[in-house]
């Protein structure tokens, strides 16, 4: 896995080697923005574009010129194709109406394909630690940016099924069964060369059934309890995509 990641990043960097990482951002008086390396020749400005071509225009057409900005070409190619995403964070919520907030921990890994910057699909696995249970959902994910730009809000929807770990507490022993998993999220993504970071807020809805050991009073009398729970949590996570 680590080796594959290294290869992936190395290939990405090689393909970017042909592109200038930092270029000039030229804003014209008509509002257009041109990215390239610029030279001022007397009353003309020549701009060398990423494509290798160059254009020249009178200085009067230039509204502003900023040197050394990160070339959008550097991250544009990461907006399509195979992607991997790792996210980690906390889960906040309560098990009972009158209990306090019970923080949990979550970590996920997704592998998918982005058809364009606005939507992609992938398969992922998550590990969610709740106060008295832990779940491992396998899910299908849909995600995408909401806007163009290096910093953009994004959406993400995950749905799948979880497997649960057995629950043990001081006074109860039960067998936990996982169930349906749903987690929509909204957040902000920062695109960089070769990767992007994100901060997200999610809602986690996880079904679980706990079957407790029967309490036998003897003489054929007993009590059996089955708890059907829908865990609802708010997740705050940070992560990286590459």
């Amino acid at each position, binding site marked *: 896995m680590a080796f594959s990641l290294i290869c992936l990043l190395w290939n990405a960097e090689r393909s970017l080697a042909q592109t200038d990482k930092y270029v000039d951002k030229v804003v014209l008086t008509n*509002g257009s923005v041109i990215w390239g390396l610029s030279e001022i020749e007397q009353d003309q400005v020549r701009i060398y574009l990423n494509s290798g071509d160059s254009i020249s225009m009178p200085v009067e057409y230039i509204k502003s010129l900023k040197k050394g900005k990160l070339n959008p070409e550097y991250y544009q190619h990461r907006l399509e194709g195979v992607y991997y995403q790792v996210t980690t964070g906390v889960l906040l919520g*309560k098990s*009972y109406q009158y209990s306090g907030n019970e923080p949990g921990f979550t970590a996920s890994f997704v592998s998918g394909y982005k058809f364009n910057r606005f939507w992609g699909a992938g398969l992922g696995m998550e590990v969610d630690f709740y106060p008295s249970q832990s779940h491992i959902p396998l899910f299908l994910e849909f995600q995408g940016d909401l806007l163009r730009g290096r910093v953009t809000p994004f959406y993400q929807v995950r749905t799948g099924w979880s497997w649960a770990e057995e629950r043990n507490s001081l006074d109860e022993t039960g067998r936990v069964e996982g169930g349906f998993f749903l987690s929509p999220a909204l957040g902000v993504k920062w695109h960089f060369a070769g990767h992007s970071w994100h901060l997200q*807020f999610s809602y986690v809805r996880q079904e679980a059934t706990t079957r407790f050991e029967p309490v036998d009073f*003897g003489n*054929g009398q007993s009590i059996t*309890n089955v708890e059907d*729970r829908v865990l609802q949590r708010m997740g705050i996570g940070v992560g990286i995509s590459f």
Partner: protein
Amino acid sequence: MTNRYKLWSNLVTAVLLSLVILMALTLVNCTDECQNTETYVYLEPVYTSASEVRSSFESLEPRELKNTGKIYRKDHFLFISEMGKGIHIFNNNDKSNPIPLSFLNIPGSFDVAVKGNIMYVDSFVDLVVLDISDPANVVQLDRIENVLNNINIMGFHSSEATGFLTDFREAESVQVYDCDEYPFMPVNGSGIWVSADQVNAFNRSEGSKAYSGSPGSGLGGSFARFAIYSDFLYVVDNWSMHVFDIDDLTSPQEVSLIDLGWGIETIFPYHDKLFIGSNTGMQIFDNSDPKNPTFVSRFDHAMACDPVVAEDNFAFITLRTGNACFGIENQLDVVDISELESPKLVKSYSMQHPHGLAIDNDILFLCEGEYGLKVFDVGNKRKINQNLLTHLRNIPSYDVIAVDSHLILVGEDGIYQFDYADPGNLKLLSVINTQSSAD
């Protein structure tokens, strides 16, 4: 990308982020949806009307023993209680081959006492008088109603309106409730929760040679609730002693009701004394005036089920752990009763799980429940544990009657009879097998 677009993009991003943070702050307190399904399997009482119960006595053909309780011996007859159902009568003339004679259908019966040809049996809250001159065809002579209201009260409820609790049937109650709630206790309507220990605790008996001083009466046990002395029948319930004048055997008359306190379990007559066992101690009554037993003294012990037997100047009490009596000790107490006004503990012996006991000429037969039967020479009251004569480990034992080298033992799977002429080498005479309770 134009500046206008970038400005709009930044604005949208900021607004979305703010909305998301606001939502997050709201969701931080979100609570699980939770529902608990509780299935309670319990015993639902089955009531029978008082009139039906009181008209249901029958003398039937012999049948298999099942759920045996107390035993009673009279002459060459053996009376074995089937708890809550009736009495089995055996001809025990040949102890190696007891012959079943009849089964008396008496709902609510647990205790029995016999004098002459008259048997006295409880039937829920009634005292039934039976003519057993022909054991194969027993006849009911009388029924004194509502005289034993406090017997077997634990788990048993009866009233004229509901009738008598005669049986249980398994029932199921399913409740669904929010996990934030918790029911105070399972709701099952009129269900009564009874454990087998509670039902059985007061219906085992242990016997010994009871010097009733009353010719013609039989032998019960130290766990019995019925006893006969002279022309009187004594019946103890959970907190009182009923004294019946049986000068006319066929027509008992209650002449006295004595308050004994709570937790009363057994009565053991010995010469002109009555020893009352309770789950907190032993009470001694002077019975020199059989019509008016008078309290002499008591010996207290830790809470436990405790049958008591006595011989000469000593009483022997077993204490055992168990749900019904909330006991925490398993032991045998030897009490010096030479001065009845102040009984004194001689010594306590740790035991495994002692139930009933019997004594005959310094030979003590002690039932250790699932651990079998132990036989001790108790000539030296301070070294009883050093004088174990024999230990029958493979016969779970609960009840015992010992008289004239004849031992009758209630085991888990049957009624055993032994010859104990050589107490260290019991000789098995016969076994009356009991049917499994699952059958």
